[in-house]
């Protein structure tokens, strides 16, 4: 047992700590990441693809552990076998889909079409919960100072924001899009936890809608050049309104120029090297972003406690299969 002779818990001072900057640093190296990538490709080929889940886990471990927040490194605690089981579930779903479509095809062409349309609608309907659960898995496997992140179950709020948002966006010819993304972000953030520390979002639909619509017209007037500045603006807005506990929020020091720089680096860097420079570019981008984001305010780490385990990995596999993967 760990001896708990540290600070007497009840006697922790409730006085607000002074406002400070909690910074992020990323230490990942492109060369190491490239080597991990090479090793993973080899193992995956040797195992005819079965290693994929372990490869992904290894990459995540590397990225997480090299990210340092306020002097402590993150840890990724997910395992290859968890992710592999997730992939098996996806494989089974695929089999079910193609099997039923084939069987329906034996009966009649119309039935086959009906089954396929039905399946497509079903897949669309489950996309939001897959995205949500995939995030839940990732959060629950993210650990800092021995405390897990987590995402509370959603009660269908995220699904509604997504599905209705899609419908309204189409009906409004895109005018609803900023509100939809704001609501998705809000639901996700309001349910995010670090141990017992709760995150919340105070950004207003009205504000982001104004920003989105004006960005649309300004982008047209400037032949799209305004768009990166809109991205910087909305990112900063979201950060400012992302409350961490009661006394802190996220800050981004980003400009449109930063987005343009990273974008050009990605496009040219990968094109000129046929994609081989990707590991270096990815690590550079993470370092670049880590330098430009920090938490401002005060967080009472002493009073944050652990919470129970989170979601399984199946959704992560599904998210990959539907190409709505989380990019890590």
């Amino acid at each position, binding site marked *: 047992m760990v*001896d708990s002779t540290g600070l007497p818990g009840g006697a922790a001072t409730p006085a607000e700590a002074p406002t400070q900057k909690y910074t992020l640093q990323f230490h990942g190296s492109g060369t190491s990441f490239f*080597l*991990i990538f090479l090793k993973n490709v080899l193992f995956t080929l040797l195992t005819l693809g079965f290693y994929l889940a372990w490869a992904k886990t290894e990459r995540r471990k590397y990225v997480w552990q090299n990210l340092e927040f306020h002097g402590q490194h993150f840890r990724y605690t997910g395992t290859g076998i968890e992710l592999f089981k997730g992939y098996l579930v996806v494989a089974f779903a695929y089999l079910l889909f193609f099997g039923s479509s084939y069987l329906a095809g034996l009966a009649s062409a119309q039935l086959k079409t009906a089954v396929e349309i039905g399946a497509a609608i079903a897949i669309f309907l489950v996309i939001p919960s897959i995205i949500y659960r995939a995030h839940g898995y990732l959060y629950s496997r993210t650990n800092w100072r021995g405390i897990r992140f987590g995402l509370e179950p959603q009660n269908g709020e995220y699904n509604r924001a997504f599905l209705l948002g899609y419908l309204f966006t189409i009906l409004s010819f895109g005018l609803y899009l900023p509100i939809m993304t704001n609501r998705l972000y809000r639901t996700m953030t309001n349910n995010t936890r670090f141990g017992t520390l709760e995150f919340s979002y105070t950004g207003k639909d009205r504000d982001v809608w104004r920003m989105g619509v004006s960005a649309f017209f300004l982008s047209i007037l400037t032949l799209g050049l305004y768009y990166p500045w809109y991205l910087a603006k909305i990112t900063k807005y979201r950060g400012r309104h992302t409350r961490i506990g009661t006394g802190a929020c996220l800050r981004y020091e980003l400009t449109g120029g930063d987005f343009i720089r990273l974008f050009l680096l990605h496009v040219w860097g*990968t094109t000129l*090297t046929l994609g081989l420079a990707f590991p270096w570019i990815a690590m550079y981008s993470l370092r670049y972003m880590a330098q430009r984001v920090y938490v401002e305010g005060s967080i009472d780490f002493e009073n944050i406690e652990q919470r129970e385990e989170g979601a399984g990995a199946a959704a992560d596999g599904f998210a990959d299969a539907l190409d709505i993967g989380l990019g890590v």
Partner: protein
Amino acid sequence: MRPRTASPTHSISDWVSEFPNETEGWAGELADGRSASLRAVRVLFDGASFLVYDASDRSLITRWTLPDTTIDAIQERDVIHLKSVAEPEALITLYGSEAREGLSRISTKSDVLPRNKWHRLALTVICVAGIASMAMLIWNAVPIVSRAIAHRIPIEAERSLGVQLEAQLSDRYCESKAAGLVLANLTEKLAGVDHQIPSVNVLNMEIPNAFAFPGGYVVLTRGLIESANSPDEVAGVLAHEIAHVYERHIMTGIVRGALLSALWAASVGDFSGLMVIDPTTAFQISTLTFSRKDEAEADRGAIKMLDRAGIRRDGFAEFFERLSESEGALPEWLSTHPASEDRAKIAASAPEFNTDTRPAMTDEAWEALLAVCSTAPELENESREIIFD
């Protein structure tokens, strides 16, 4: 003093008295996994366990045995995470190059990658060599495997892929009875006894072309028949298409494409979206290579068929000779077909199986075939390149 032996008979007070001095052990922090608070610790390894002491009051906090403990060295930093199955939520972080070196002597599994640059270079070379040999193996094995799979799929199952195209094209088929009979006779003669006879039709189209599509359908265009100098040429092209059907080249191509893209997706995984080595282009080039092999195989099959049917193969050779004269300067590796000149040579140089050959059909039959579309309406010209699939 560093304890040499760790015996379970020690009491806590023994450990306390053996607290390391400032130079012994490694400095770090303990997160107990219950709260996010940190506690400064010193950690000692006694040969069997990690002893964790409070840095300020020098009391022993906990003891993790080596088999229970996971050592995660953070690749790019002198920071090490220790975890133990005994206290799964707790985390010890150690700092400094001394700790890293000391721990790497205790466990060699701690690093994701080697730190030594020569070891890294060796790993790179091994990986590149391994990937290259796997790629070669796959390149050679995939065509064989896909062929074996394709031959096990009944042609009836393949037909479901071709029925739609068949339905679209059949409106434009020429339906001269006499010509149909001539074609059916020729097909039967070429097909031999041990094979199902494919369905052959003439499409009312000006551009000379011939192709086979999924389900064992073969189509010749009116333009092809009209541009032929002799019925033997038509027989040669027809034999080539029938060979495609018998060799199951279309199904083989489908299976091959599926296998290759699955392997590509599996090996590159979720990096595929970020790679600029565009898989589609890579596949197109690889498919072209395979398709040239298929074409050459169909040529050999056609010659065998012509020989067996007792039809002169000169027509086949002449047809490709004429084609090679009109052919552009596309290099062979960018083309779906072997160079026509080479194909004419194959036809001319293959050993003769049958020297007792006759023309493919009588003059009357040839007249009937030439008139195949005389009753059908002219089809608008479509700009399609001249491809003999």
